[in-house]
């Protein structure tokens, strides 16, 4: 037995919260993905790092 009546307002809030959650999760995935791409391509490596590795 439910103590709280499900109102249309709750459905609307749930949809909005779910949307915000998906946006935030997508943002995390994007930042993580960009970090992986940038780091593996060596965008943030110091210029002398490659020289040191070559020695």
């Amino acid at each position, binding site marked *: 037995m439910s103590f709280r009546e499900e109102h249309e307002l709750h459905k609307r809030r749930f949809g909005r919260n779910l949307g915000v959650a998906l946006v935030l999760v997508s943002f995390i995935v994007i930042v993580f993905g960009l970090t992986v791409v940038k780091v593996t*391509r060596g965008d943030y490596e110091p210029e002398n790092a490659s020289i040191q590795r070559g020695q």
Partner: protein
Amino acid sequence: MSDASINTQAKAAHGDAEFGDYFALLKPRVMSLVVFTAAVGLLAAPGSVHPFVAFCAILFIAVGGGASGALNMWYDADIDRVMARTKKRPIPAGTVSEGEAFAIGIALSGFSVVMLGLAANWVAAALLAFTIFFYVVIYTMWLKRWTPQNIVIGGAAGAFPPMIGWAVVTGGISIESLLMFTLTFMWTPPHFWALCLFMKSDYKDAGVPMLHVTHGRRVTRNHILVYTLLLAVVAIGMAFTGVGGPIYLTTALILNGLFVAGAISIWRRDEEVSEADGYKREKAFFALSLLYLFLHFGAILAEATLAPYGYGGW
């Protein structure tokens, strides 16, 4: 007061808009044009970027375009409440408050510019920031309520995305990206004025000085023809640049032939003739204008895609 209005006011008072209402603030249909033209600019540019960076760059450009749409809806809420076409937008409908729209617009503007700068480069980010500034401040706040040439100059805001896409790859501006900008810039006036001719809009009540309201429909028909002829020169000229080729030239010749013929047909008609057939030619011209821009950018994309296989370009 109707039940519907009580309901929408109740929603606004409680700030319980649905997620879709916030998404509608970003003008999704305009965003689709932004995404397409920016993607073509990015793919046609010489050089390459990582596919994930390209995806993120297009996403941030789209978010930036959406943010400027939200700020436009915030500033133009008074106009939107008057006009039948815009009455159902989230702010006039009462689902989203003006303050919320402003906050979302500002937050997403800053977010999209910074993220594009970090993901791609700061030239692309600066162009995106300028696009948002141009659309919100120059067009929405200044030109729209001041001059009947509002759509001509304001059209620049919608023309920047291919330039931004190009800058994501090259980190700069070139003649090809400027021509892609000019193509959309010159296309906007005839496209929009054709819509104005057959849409019984209420710009006059809203106090927006559109050309057909201030100077009449005859002058609007003349303007459509002049801008279409200038557009044809730009569109066909682009075929002989780095982004052009036989596919683009063929597409441009056919489409511009049809577009100029349509503009001449509109120019030769008067209101009586147009009203008699329910603005058939004007509606056909407007529908062709949508196809026109899509196919021109599609041809640029085809040239860029086929070039590595020896088919695209000259």
